[in-house]
């Protein structure tokens, strides 16, 4: 992996519009059963503008920025050897249907540990008003030669 990736920031990804049916589809896929994820009336009764997305939904938006990273010609990352090491979401507010979200990636750590390389990619996700919604942090492990 190219150590010069460290500290690199990327241009913001194109805005992602959170659709109500996408929230329902994602909710069902992660076995969410809470009505606030699925039923607009229940979400509104709980004080939300629309359906609330599950806590891991931000991965869908982060994915766009991870694709930017893997597409970097000088990254030296072999996609077929990439394993997801860890994941974190630090939330200011929940994502709701109707949000227009913009994600921007920064590489905050590049390490080599016994033949494996690790890259930490931090995607800061903001809403249409520019306010912080969630930061999604992924560590990708690139397995070395066996």
């Amino acid at each position: 992996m190219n150590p010069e990736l460290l500290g690199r920031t990327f241009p913001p990804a194109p805005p992602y519009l959170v659709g109500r049916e996408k929230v329902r589809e994602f909710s069902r896929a992660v076995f969410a059963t809470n009505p606030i994820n699925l039923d607009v009336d229940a979400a509104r009764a709980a004080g939300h503008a629309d359906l609330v997305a599950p806590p891991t939904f931000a991965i869908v938006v982060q994915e766009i920025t991870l694709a930017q990273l893997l597409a970097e010609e000088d990254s030296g990352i072999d996609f077929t050897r990439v394993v997801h090491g860890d994941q974190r979401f630090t939330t200011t507010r929940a994502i709701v249907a109707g949000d227009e979200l913009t994600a921007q990636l920064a590489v905050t750590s590049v390490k080599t540990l016994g033949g494996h390389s690790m890259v930490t990619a931090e995607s800061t996700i903001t809403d249409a008003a520019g306010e912080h919604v969630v930061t999604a942090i992924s560590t990708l492990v690139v397995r070395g030669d066996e």
Partner: protein
Amino acid sequence: MPQLTDLTVGDIVAERSVTLTRDSLVRYAGASGDFNPIHYRDDVAASVGLPGVLAHGMLTMGLAVQPVVDWAGDPARVVDYQVRFTRPVLVDPQHGAVVNVVAKVGALDVEASVARIDLTVSFDDATVLGKAQVRVRL
């Protein structure tokens, strides 16, 4: 909604068992946009040296927090969620895979009104997520 003052470190607040099938993986692939074929094709999984088709780590992470969401009463109360992916979940084409989740109070921050809920997520009698922590504002 649970009250922070009613909780004690070590309390089990939620438990759930989820059976994943190959259909679950295809559904998650479509919903998330992660179409890596190791999550639905045995031949591709075998070609990269895997013992079989694996669940997406993000699917395991996504389902493991759901019992906590239901206990807290609102998905918006989850303010922080982190996991480490330590072992894969192999999904048998016929029998699927049973993932068990136990959610326990790990720490209480009364000032911030946040409970840290620690998840034990296991498959085949071994834990598959490490340092799985959910911070919930109550």
